[in-house]
């Protein structure tokens, strides 16, 4: 067991969805403990509730039952504004389909989280620093020459790197990745995983869900989600 402090803890998380007339129980008491600096892969078959679990960990969704706490703070008890702040400052999301905003260029997509948390006066105060950080991230992700490009002008791998840059913009304590290589060819996906390894090497805590065991093996720890529960 790691001696590093626990950063994220999920206990007996239940979640169900209504699909037409039937209710589908997706999570049936899933547990997870993530220590600071860990790179955890959650693996499971398609439809096993991996993405739902990740969204609950990131405060994008609320569980029907169970507790999710970040550094001992229960996400369920957070007010709406606190949860927004949690998603803005503490968590960074990387999605399978990148989800970049088409109207913004690469640089703007990266510094979007810095803009979202501020009004016009606040943004004007930090604009230079935020742009510099976004450029630094793009450099780190080898996308410097793509800063002014629009998402549709980029390849899948480049888009995913932009999405990683966006996720890292506000220096989050936790990076949550939902099938980050699911939409990429193996070589490009490998490049993305290299980036994750580098970030983890620098101390970034990462939780990644995937259905691909080979991808999951790149993480420091792999847990399996089966039948709505974490199999140890």
């Amino acid at each position, binding site marked *: 067991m790691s001696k590093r402090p626990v950063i994220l803890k999920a206990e007996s998380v239940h979640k169900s969805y209504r699909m037409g007339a039937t209710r589908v129980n997706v999570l049936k008491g899933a547990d997870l403990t993530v220590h600071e600096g860990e790179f955890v892969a959650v693996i499971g078959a398609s439809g096993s509730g991996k993405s739902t679990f990740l969204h609950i960990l990131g405060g994008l969704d609320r569980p029907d039952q169970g507790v999710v706490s970040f550094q001992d703070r229960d996400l369920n008890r957070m007010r709406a504004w606190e949860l927004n702040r949690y998603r803005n400052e503490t968590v960074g999301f990387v999605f399978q389909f990148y989800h970049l905003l088409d109207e913004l260029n690469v640089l703007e997509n990266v510094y979007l989280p810095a803009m*979202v948390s501020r009004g016009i006066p606040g943004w004007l105060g930090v604009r230079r620093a935020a742009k510099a950080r976004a450029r630094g991230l793009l450099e780190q992700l080898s996308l410097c020459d793509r800063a002014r490009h629009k998402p549709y002008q980029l390849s899948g791998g480049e888009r995913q790197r932009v999405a990683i840059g966006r996720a890292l913009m506000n220096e989050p304590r936790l990076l949550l990745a939902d099938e980050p290589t699911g939409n990429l060819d193996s070589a490009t996906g490998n490049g993305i995983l290299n980036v994750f390894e580098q970030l983890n090497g620098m101390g970034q805590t990462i939780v990644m869900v995937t259905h691909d065991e080979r991808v999951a093996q790149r993480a420091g720890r792999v847990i399996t989600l089966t039948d709505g529960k974490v199999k140890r």
Partner: protein
Amino acid sequence: MYKLTLIIRYLLKRRITHFAVLTVALCVFIVVVVMTVMSGLVGDIKQKNHAFVGDCVVGTKSLVGFPYYEELMATLEQADFVEAVAPVVKNYALLSPVGSDRSRGVEIMGVDPVRQSRTTDFAQALDYRRDDVARAFVPLYDPNTAGCILGVDLAYSRDALGGYSFSAQPARVGLTLTCFPLNARGAPARAGSSEVATRRFYYSDHSQTGLARVDDSMVYIPLDQAQALCMAGALKRVTAVHVKFRSGTSLGQGCDQTRTLWEQFKQSKQGAADSNLLDTVTVESWKEYRRTFVAPLEKEEAMLSVMFGFVGVTTVFIVFVVFYMIISHKTKDIGVLKSVGASEASIMSLFSGFAIVIGVLGAALGVSGALLFLAKINRVENWLYERFNWQLWDRTIYSIGDIPHHVEFSVLAVVVCCAIGACLIGVLVPAYGAARLRPVETLHGTQT
């Protein structure tokens, strides 16, 4: 800050937003143009009616008239709120050119030209005697004959552009007016050997009030001639006394005070000869007195406002549809924004702000277009007439000069506020729906 950035980008990149702006602009354009023209016409008609009768009328609908008007005028003239008063005799007569057996029915109005000019815009409506109104009934060509003033459309025909070709001097035209004089009991009085009274006048001037019905059928003659032609009896009578208030006196206040003075006057005449005729007299403001001409227009204006209310509803619906479509295409963006910490209120304000920008741009575009169009509206109408022989208002029928194009700032302000308000109302439901979207639903399985 991201909201401003996204609003600008959505506006520039999304063609559908251009249609939304265009829709708002067109609605604003139509409303501003039509309201300006309509309210201009209504305002013009009101102003002309006001100018025609003065501020207040103490009068009777009966053609018999009422006596003691000179004492009434003296009483009114002593009141500090009254600037001027003028006696008037109104009646109907047959007008026929001397030597012709053709005649037509006209209204006659017996006036004292000097008093009438002090009370109304009588002098300004004249052509030859505008600056010498005391001699309005003296023909330039023969000072010894009795003159009459014809409504301009009785004397001249309007050309297609609404203009007249006046001669430098009034033509020597003799006219006969035939009338049934009424005695104080309202019965036809025998005038000489006949029950009709006939007098000859010579055309001395014409009057252009801008009121089609007046200019087309009114013949003005001296007050005493009208009394002799239309009335019989020992006491001189008039059908109305027109009153002009001093500046600073409100219409309501002036009419109330006039009404009080009239009641006192009537009381003082109880038991006097023919005092029963005073019972038919009413005191009315010019708006009440001319309501048969003004009220329908006001009604039309109000109906037009209601119709534009429907235009507003249409705008709301169009904006709703446009935003519903935009938001349907932007669910992924909403999910992304929520994933990076945007609140529901922030998403709502993003789309509300977007709606305001569309409203402001549409309104600005619509107002600019409307101002430009209104500035050129008469030129456009002339061009249409010259090119296609088509007129919006046939000047041979409608007694208007230029199409009104003076834009009221208050109308503009209301229209612009309504346009922005319509956009805001239109966006409320879609924006609320967007704000309530669960990011999980929008982010799961949609590909960029």
